[in-house]
């Protein structure tokens, strides 16, 4: 979706302001926001792609004016409400007001270390040969789905060169919407600065994206 998350190439946000000796967390609530997000992922009820979709479908102005942990929290609340686990009035009250369905899983303390160490690999066995090979020119399709996609707007319609064939990975455009993983080949694709931004672009610049095969078509 063309939400506020798709920021590449925009101007007007001012300089980057790195914080000297930045702490890992800026307060106890950020610790809890991270931990709750990861622990609730452990309920096994939604995918990482769904998390991203819930974040980017927040109100665009709200998204751009809140911190990243606030965005995480808002998306977590949406997922919990959507699944009927926790509703807004319960959060307002700070206590359970009604019974809710059991979750598929619960991340227990003993599972934290092995679960974080294992991660969630997204690569899948290849069932078809890759359509493109390294060095080939491809164009990103012009798409504007109202649903989740990982093809940024600045790359749509642009021609790049396949830098690397990365393997087959779960496809976010499907996986975010509970339509299954629908795995596809994923490629690293390199664009010149000129192709993306025009003749005034920095001549030393190139930009790569990682793109799934359904985003791409062979370029003449």
């Amino acid at each position, binding site marked *: 979706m063309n939400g506020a998350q798709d920021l590449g190439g925009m101007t007007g946000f001012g300089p980057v302001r790195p914080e000297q000796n930045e702490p890992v967390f800026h307060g106890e609530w950020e610790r809890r926001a991270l931990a709750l997000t990861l622990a609730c992922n452990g309920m096994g009820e939604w995918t990482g792609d769904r998390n991203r979709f819930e974040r980017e479908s927040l109100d665009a102005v709200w998204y751009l004016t809140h911190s990243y942990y606030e965005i995480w929290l808002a998306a977590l609340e949406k997922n*919990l409400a959507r699944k009927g686990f926790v509703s807004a009035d319960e959060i307002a009250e700070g206590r359970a007001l009604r019974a809710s369905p059991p979750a598929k899983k619960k991340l*227990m303390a003993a599972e934290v270390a092995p679960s974080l160490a294992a991660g969630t690999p997204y690569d899948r066995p290849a069932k078809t040969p890759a359509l493109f090979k390294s060095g080939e020119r491809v164009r990103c399709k012009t798409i504007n789905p109202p649903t989740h996609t990982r093809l*940024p707007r600045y790359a749509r319609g642009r021609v790049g060169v396949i830098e690397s064939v990365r393997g087959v990975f779960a496809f976010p455009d499907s996986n975010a919407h509970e339509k299954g993983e629908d795995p596809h080949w994923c490629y690293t694709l390199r664009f010149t600065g000129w192709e993306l931004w025009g003749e005034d672009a920095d001549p030393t610049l190139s930009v790569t994206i990682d793109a799934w095969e359904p985003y791409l078509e062979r370029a003449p």
Partner: protein
Amino acid sequence: MSAHHHHDHDHDHPHLSPVELRVRALESVLVEKGYVDPAALDLIVETYETKIGPRNGARVVAKSWVDPAFRERLLKDATSAIAELGFSGRQGEHMVALENTASRHNVVVCTLCSCYPWPVLGLPPVWYKSAPYRSRVVIDPRGVLADFGLTLPKDTEIRVWDSTAELRYLVIPMRPEGTDGWSEERLADLVTRDSMIGTGVALRPDEAKP
């Protein structure tokens, strides 16, 4: 840890901000309903606050500076090479190492969210997740590097890597001059977090903390 969370209301904590109150309330409800284990929450925080951070990545880089065979493995299959040092898992399942050279500088971003190689760098800093960086580094990388006080030669090739899928990128900065014969541990002190994102370079020996 959790027991005192159960009856939090606004008037009990006049010093807490709305978001602080909200996250406490959410945690209370989730614990009360049995969806999360409070001890698991504490362990997650402890892991990312004390165990996983940019020191991990610095060890990978330092090893790549002194061990050519490791460097070759790292550039060929970063996930496996990094795992040799014991770093793996969440948000580092599919790693790619990017080699900086005298003529080429790599910079990593996630324009669409906050993708970042957690096992080697820990959690991302605020600026990495914020609009100024995500919007501008793909179109004006030299301007962004200037915000970090970094100016590269005019003819240095700049490669920006937008982490739009599940691959996670680690920049291998160049080894600083004047470090011949240094141990891996000493070299690791020169490897900053920003040098592994590409918004910085490794410290010179005279910049290293004693």
